[in-house]
């Protein structure tokens, strides 16, 4: 089924460059970016500042996907982790370049540019971030 190309295009800055934002009132960092800070609410309006995240973080927890969605079937078994980024936000991403039995909670990881999925062999290719262990 064709994916939503405009939606992907709108998210390119987040997916390619991990562009998030920071509340100018309490300094909390959000990824993906938020329209306003849920803690400061009205106080944060107009003060949400765009920032580029470092792409460095730590694995908080992970799971191994053995039965993946259609576009990911060829990759099973593959790890998906919740990663706490240096700047604070927690995100979900695939872990690559790491054997499953070498994965550990607390492992330092960094983002890498990879192909996430594609609309079959004729559709658009969607790129974005995955994470790999830092040596």
């Amino acid at each position, binding site marked *: 089924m064709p994916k939503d190309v405009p939606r992907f295009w709108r998210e*390119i800055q987040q997916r*390619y460059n991990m562009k998030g934002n920071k509340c100018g009132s309490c300094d909390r960092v959000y990824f993906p970016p938020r329209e306003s800070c849920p803690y400061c609410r009205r106080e944060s309006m107009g003060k949400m500042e765009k920032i580029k995240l470092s792409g460095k973080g730590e694995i908080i927890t992970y799971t191994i996907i053995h039965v993946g969605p259609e576009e990911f079937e060829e990759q099973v078994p593959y790890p998906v982790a919740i990663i706490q980024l240096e700047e604070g936000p927690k995100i979900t991403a695939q872990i690559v370049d790491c054997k499953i039995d070498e994965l550990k909670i607390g492992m330092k990881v960094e983002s890498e*540019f*990879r*192909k*996430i999925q594609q609309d079959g062999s004729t559709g658009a*290719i969607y*790129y974005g971030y995955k994470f790999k262990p830092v040596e």
Partner: protein
Amino acid sequence: MTDIGIVSYGGSIPRLRIKAEELADVWGKDGTRIAKGLGIAEKSVPSIDQDTATISVEAARNALKRCHINPQDIGSIYIGSESHPYAVKPTGTIVGEAIGATPDLMVADYEFACKAGTAGVQNCFSNVKAGLIKYGLAIGADTAQAAPGDALEFSAAAGGAAFIIGNEKVIAAINHTYSYATDTPDFWRRAEQKYPRHGGRFTGEPAYFKHVTNASKNLMEKAKTTPKDYDYAVFHQPNAKFPLKEAKILGFTKEQIKPGLKVSYIGNTYSGASLVGLAGVLDIAKPGDRILMTSYGSGAGSDSFDITVTDEISKYERDKAPLIDDMINDKEYISYGVYAKYTDLLYWE
């Protein structure tokens, strides 16, 4: 005269490898003999989520990590490859967006078999020389295709290197560049075909050797140099045999060639091959070192470069990104079955 040349560089090589023996076993061939004949013991393989765009982005990001330039000052991006992910839609805009260089940017994807990356270097050099741009980014990268069972399967590999060209804080000045091209059908892939065809032994004398020899000779004539003036020479490396024979033809020693000869460990990275070799040499180069690099692209042509490493390389932050040898040593072996799946040799609906 202000130096124009390499301001920064970076490589990217996927970590998966397949051994020549593993490939040979499947097709009932003698892997040890083939590995010895080609001088390629194993080759790099792209993971299922790696392609020319991801390799190019990683190489460009590695180049940017080593210098302090603002990506917005990059005025042109040229990417040479014969495996651009799209037939229509540039790899260059993906890279431009992923490094924050858009939108004031000249972008084009180049195609000239294995020499499209060095053509990008020449165009960035020309743009900087003409004063059109501050910095240019040239990348040669490929996830090379080989039909199952074809001789190319033992060499077609994945990898690439990115070079930022400019005239400030130049670590390696490009003194001269020269190109040599003729219509020679030694290797090709027709539109909409998945795998290339090649002329077997015809790819040697009238193709690779004629073009690399003439390009290198004519460049040295232009630069008024001889092989003795160079510390290193890097030639396109479809296998380890060709560049070593080329060195002998031109009068270079094995010692001049070896540091830039990476094909034995990763295979032929096509548009990336000579540039990965150059990156490997810059990883160890000292101020004053002189490098000759000549690429080769089937069809056919060669771009030759006379390069001098400057004092600036002493201050250059090389350790901010992995060296080519670090990437070569970071590897994981796969079986032919996994290779077939990852390189899309299997079809099903």
